[in-house]
């Protein structure tokens, strides 16, 4: 299947859904689901059809440049990942969004974001890359704003940072064009080989700002918590699961497809080596946001901060340019996509059933009411922590292994610290939503509707599948690495066959099953468990009237008081301060236009006098 067909389907889907929304709501929903599933099908079908047949120039002359599409392993891998998560979110939206207004707009924007992202990964040149990148940016902005209220603020924050990034990227791209006269990704790789390292660094910086904003690397992350928590939940899943990871795609493309491995590793000297700095940025991005996440009481904000933090792992993996590390980075990207999307959907389901509540201090005990959601949440946090049997374990294994074999114990330590923070904070998420006491008002909550359960269970399945059989995605990743010139890893279906990072999930799987069996056996053999009313343990025997229970609120309060002074988002504060000052300057600037005509004439004459003065003083002409 040609990439053109995929893109036409994607954009046509977005347009048709909008039109269908004017006709009938069922038709609209049907079309939305159909086109997103069709995209998954189309992309899946085009697997392996790489090569020159699928390099298509779709606009031969855009201001003298060719716009091209192409399909290669990297593009395919990201495309299928985008399409699947988007399809799941669209399906989830069916019931989540029911009864809200402007649904035609919502669905078409969902599909447009999807189309933009597909366009990014399928572009064969940087101009199309930029165009699709921008389409994605503004459609995302509209979608974030969709919820109104504070979402408007979040949207503005997002789009301003995004615009800054785009400007930087535009400069980078066009400087490439000015230097080499082409923007074709395939040709740039060869052209850039001989250029000076300073220039390469400039390109990496310019592009890096754009990718870093999307990727939410510290200190460019501040849009993300607001945007994620204010967007509607299915879109948060897309946002955190794939959209943010377009930054990862960009980094991979620029660093390894274009600049190339050798150059990257030799950029800069000593401590100021490019990949070294990048990896430290990644490490900081892991630790600080993860602990900030710990302090959040808004379920979606908590997940959003994790979204930032997990990005750090990907950077860490990718930065070192070893086969293992890059594979880990890419693998972690899709793993993260799967479980963060799952968690956002779970939160969305809870929100849907409880009437929009996502404050962790007001929830609890929903395990009885929403078992599937609980299961999803459990699997999701297992993945996030990186428990064995889940895919998160495998990718984190790769990353840790890289850090240790490359000799960076400090970085590895920071990654571990990040994982501890993760464990603490996701337990808070799980506990405060599903465990503990069920508040009175949620007694009547029903379980999530089927259209929500399907995506949740689907992601659970994916998490376990890739956790037990990591060979499936790793094969595809190997294909990507081949095109970038990495040494091949020795893969099996179960993991890594040999070398430093040998891993066999089958063995681990067996070990865990046996361990479970032993525990189960011990429990069966020991004292018979007995159900006790909750009051027994809770009130130490004395009777507490119903409705007076203390639910679990203010989790980690002592810890909070201890670390919160260190974890203020000073970057965000700085941006606000800067924006405030800038507005002050703008207000002052406006005073130039005094409204008095005489002053305006004075300006005219002073301009004339200035010109003459300049000539008298410096002879500018």
């Amino acid at each position, binding site marked *: 299947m040609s990439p053109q067909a995929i893109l036409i389907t994607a954009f046509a889907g977005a347009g048709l859904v909008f039109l269908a929304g004017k006709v009938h709501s069922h038709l609209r929903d049907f079309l939305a689901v159909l086109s997103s599933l069709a995209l998954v099908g189309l992309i899946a079908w085009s697997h392996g059809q790489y090569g020159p047949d699928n390099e298509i120039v779709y606009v031969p002359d855009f201001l003298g440049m060719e716009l091209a599409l192409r399909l290669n392993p990297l593009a395919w891998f990201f495309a299928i990942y985008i399409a699947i998560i988007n399809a799941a979110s669209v399906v989830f939206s069916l019931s989540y969004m029911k009864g809200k207004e402007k649904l035609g707009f919502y669905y078409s924007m969902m599909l447009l974001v999807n189309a933009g992202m597909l366009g990014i990964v399928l572009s064969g040149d940087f101009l199309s890359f930029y165009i699709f990148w921008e389409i994605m940016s503004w459609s995302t902005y509209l979608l974030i704003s969709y919820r109104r209220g504070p979402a408007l603020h979040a949207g503005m924050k997002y789009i301003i940072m995004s615009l800054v990034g785009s400007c930087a990227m535009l400069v980078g791209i066009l400087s490439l064009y000015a230097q080499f006269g082409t923007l074709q990704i395939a040709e740039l790789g060869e052209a850039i080989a001989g250029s000076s390292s300073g220039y390469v660094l400039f390109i990496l910086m310019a592009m890096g700002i754009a990718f870093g904003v999307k990727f939410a690397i510290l200190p460019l992350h501040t849009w993300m918590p607001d945007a994620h928590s204010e967007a509607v939940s299915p879109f948060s899943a897309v946002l955190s699961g794939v959209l943010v990871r377009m930054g990862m795609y960009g980094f991979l493309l620029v660093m390894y497809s274009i600049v190339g491995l050798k150059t990257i590793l030799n950029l800069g000297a000593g401590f100021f080596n490019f990949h070294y700095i990048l990896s430290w940025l990644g490490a900081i991005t892991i630790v600080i946001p993860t602990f900030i996440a710990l302090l959040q009481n808004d379920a979606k904000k908590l997940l959003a901060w994790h979204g930032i933090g997990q990005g750090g792992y990907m950077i860490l993996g990718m930065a070192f340019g070893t086969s293992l590390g890059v594979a880990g980075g890419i693998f972690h990207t899709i793993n993260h996509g799967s479980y963060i999307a799952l968690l956002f959907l779970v939160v969305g389901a809870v929100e849907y059933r409880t009437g929009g509540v996502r404050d962790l201090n007001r929830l609890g005990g929903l395990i009885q009411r929403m078992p599937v959601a609980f299961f999803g949440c459990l699997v999701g946090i297992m993945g996030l922590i990186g428990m064995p049997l889940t895919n998160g374990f495998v990718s984190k294994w790769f990353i840790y292994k890289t850090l240790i074999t490359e000799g960076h114990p400090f970085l590895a330590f920071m990654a571990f610290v990040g994982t501890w923070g993760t464990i603490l904070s996701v337990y808070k998420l799980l506990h405060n939503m599903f465990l503990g006491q069920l508040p009175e008002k949620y007694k009547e909550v029903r379980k999530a509707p089927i259209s929500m359960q399907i995506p949740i269970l689907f992601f659970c399945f994916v998490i376990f599948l890739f956790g037990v059989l990591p060979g499936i995605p790793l094969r595809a990743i190997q294909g990507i690495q081949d095109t970038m010139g990495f040494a091949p890893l020795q893969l099996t279906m179960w993991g890594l066959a040999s070398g430093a990072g040998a891993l066999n999930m089958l063995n681990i799987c067996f070990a865990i099953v046996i361990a479970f069996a032993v525990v189960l056996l011990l429990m069966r053999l020991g004292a018979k468990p007995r159900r006790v009313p909750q009051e027994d343990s809770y009130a130490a025997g004395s009777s507490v009237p119903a409705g007076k229970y203390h639910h679990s609120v203010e989790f980690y309060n002592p810890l909070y008081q201890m670390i919160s002074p260190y974890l203020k988002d000073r970057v965000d504060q700085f941006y606000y301060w800067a924006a405030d000052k800038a507005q002050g300057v703008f207000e002052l600037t406006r005073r130039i236009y005094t409204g008095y005509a*005489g002053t305006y004439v004075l300006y005219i004459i002073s301009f004339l006098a200035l010109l*003459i003065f300049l000539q008298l003083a410096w002879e500018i002409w």
Partner: protein
Amino acid sequence: MRRLISLLLLLIVALGIFLCFSGASFGAEGASRAGKLTEDKVNFGRRYASRGLEENKAGNIVASVVVNYRGFDTLGEVTVLFIAAVGLAAILHARREEATPSKAEPASLIVFTGCRFLFPLILLLGAYIFIHGHLTPGGGFQGGAVVASGFLLIYLGCRGRGLRSAGVAVAESLSGLAFLAVALVGLAVGGSFLLNFLPKGSAFALFSGGVIPLIYVAIGFKVGSELGGIIDNLSGEAR
């Protein structure tokens, strides 16, 4: 403070202008003294002065330049005046609707009679000026202005009387269209806008200069009616 800054700025401008004149020869005078007034090019109008008479057969070279060589400017100029008349009427339109008619005191008998006596003479003088524009100093604009001053007298002396706005509009339109039509006939006949396509006759005769008198008459009517219209509009509230 403001005065000081203004003076300072104007001083710089003045200095710049002053230094302009210190260099090479400037203007027709400078060129003539430097012996650079040549006829092969436009060069300070030398060519028009020396060949204008035979080319257009119009004694007044300025008229030749205004209507023929730089006739396109004149078209723009007429347009500007037209814009002023129309724009002024538009701006004062709302005011005319708001204004309550106030009864003006009638002019004294001497003024009244004097105006009535002078009015046709002034019209005649104006007509003379624009009809002879290609022969003597003057032309369409000057004649038109004189005609308009006749109307001004009417407003002064005979309160309550004035131009009929419909008549003014028709005169404006038709004279402007006549100018354009003459110019376009030139385009159709000789392939050049404003071409002097009529037989030029012999110089210094009334019927000479080809289209120049025709256009000047049209301009005369147009300017007269437009300035008259402006006067009419500006004095609107007096009536």
